[in-house]
């Protein structure tokens, strides 16, 4: 076998191998690719810093439908001091991008308040401030921790563990 043939064979094998690696990597990342939908229940206790009871008991439905649209649905009950209110809001997302291997950033297009939502915006904004520092953008990390379970992190800390569906 000629030297050039050996070199050609080597180069071909190397290219094939790289393609294989790329394919494996591609399909590995596909696992967290869009659409991504997950839900979980959370209790956010923001009381202690305020010296007053501020508690959100909400079910959350996070959906990154594609890079152009998605939403975070928050539905539940809010305890603020002595008052208890209903929370039913949808944070509508648009103009998203995957900024790292497991981090998505979407523009908050609109926060849609349901008619049965009785929570004052000022109270809701306390929760929103935990989820995102910039009220115009939502940036969440999505890290797979189990077969169908993901750890969602905000800019300040981990926020919740949810089950993908």
């Amino acid at each position, binding site marked *: 076998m000629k030297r050039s043939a050996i070199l050609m064979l080597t180069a071909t094998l190397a290219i094939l191998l790289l393609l294989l690696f790329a394919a494996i990597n591609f399909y590995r990342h596909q696992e967290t690719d869009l659409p991504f939908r997950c839900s979980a229940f959370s*209790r956010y206790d923001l009381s202690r810093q305020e010296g007053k009871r501020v508690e959100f008991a909400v079910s959350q439905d996070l959906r990154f439908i594609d890079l152009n649209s998605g939403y975070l649905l928050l539905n539940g009950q809010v305890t603020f001091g002595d008052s208890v209110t209903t929370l039913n809001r949808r944070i509508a997302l648009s103009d998203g991008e995957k900024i790292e291997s497991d981090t998505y950033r979407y523009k908050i297009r609109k926060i849609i308040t349901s008619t049965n939502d009785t929570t004052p915006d000022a109270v809701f904004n306390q929760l929103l401030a935990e989820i995102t520092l910039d009220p115009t953008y939502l940036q969440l990390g999505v890290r797979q921790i189990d077969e169908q379970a993901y750890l969602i992190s905000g800019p300040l*800390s981990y926020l919740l*563990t949810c089950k993908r569906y």
Partner: protein
Amino acid sequence: MIYIIDDQITYNSDDCTLSHIPTQESLSLSISSGRLFEQLLNSEGEILARDTLLTEVWDRYGLRGSNSNLNQYLSILRRALAAYGCQNLIITLPKIGIRLNTEIKIVREAAPAVSDRAVHQIAGSETDAPLSEVITPAPSSAPEVKPTRVTHRLRFPLMILAMLLAAFSLYLLVHAAQKKSEQTTLQLKGGCEAVLLKGLDVIERQSIESQIMEILKENNQSCIAGRRIYFDNNTAFTPTNYGRTILSACNLDERGRIISCDNFYYLDWRMN
């Protein structure tokens, strides 16, 4: 065996020595060249296929020969013979094989016993004098035989392939290990397992376990087998603020996969 070729050249197959009778010059052939030459000299003019020569000269001795090796050694032989005035002894028949030129006379003689020669050499007799002047031409000093079978030639590509595979495997292992190394799993008293997302040191362990148990208790959550707790705490920079604490209590199925999780998030949570 000693072969006398055209009354001009002798070839001693015992020590692979080619000698020019008129000038008493000698040269040593390499072992493979010698074997090849002997095969040709014994062929009595028959055509020898290349495969036959490869088998007889290399394969039979556990070596790996190739057509290029064969061509190289034939060339060495031709040059050596030509240097001693014997042209066209070896004839190549394209795509058929090799044969000796039957028009050139070849006589065979038995070689003297080795012990006799050794004695003569020690005594420095004239008949063996040329042996001490053996010249080894550059081509014959080339490596004996290069193992050049396909499997051997594939060694380089295969090595590259193996190295790439090893590098990729290492990358995956390191990547997985890095992710795993960040977290620590504890078995708590109730039977549940707790995954500490950032890991912990030995000193923290007791404190973390207490925190987990207290948060579970505060939220009416159990720590029983079949549950997994994910816990993390982001300590604030100020001593008056404990930062953010997240605990996820997850239920597992019989295969240990997460079915659902309840999350408890605290701002400035601390143990009572």
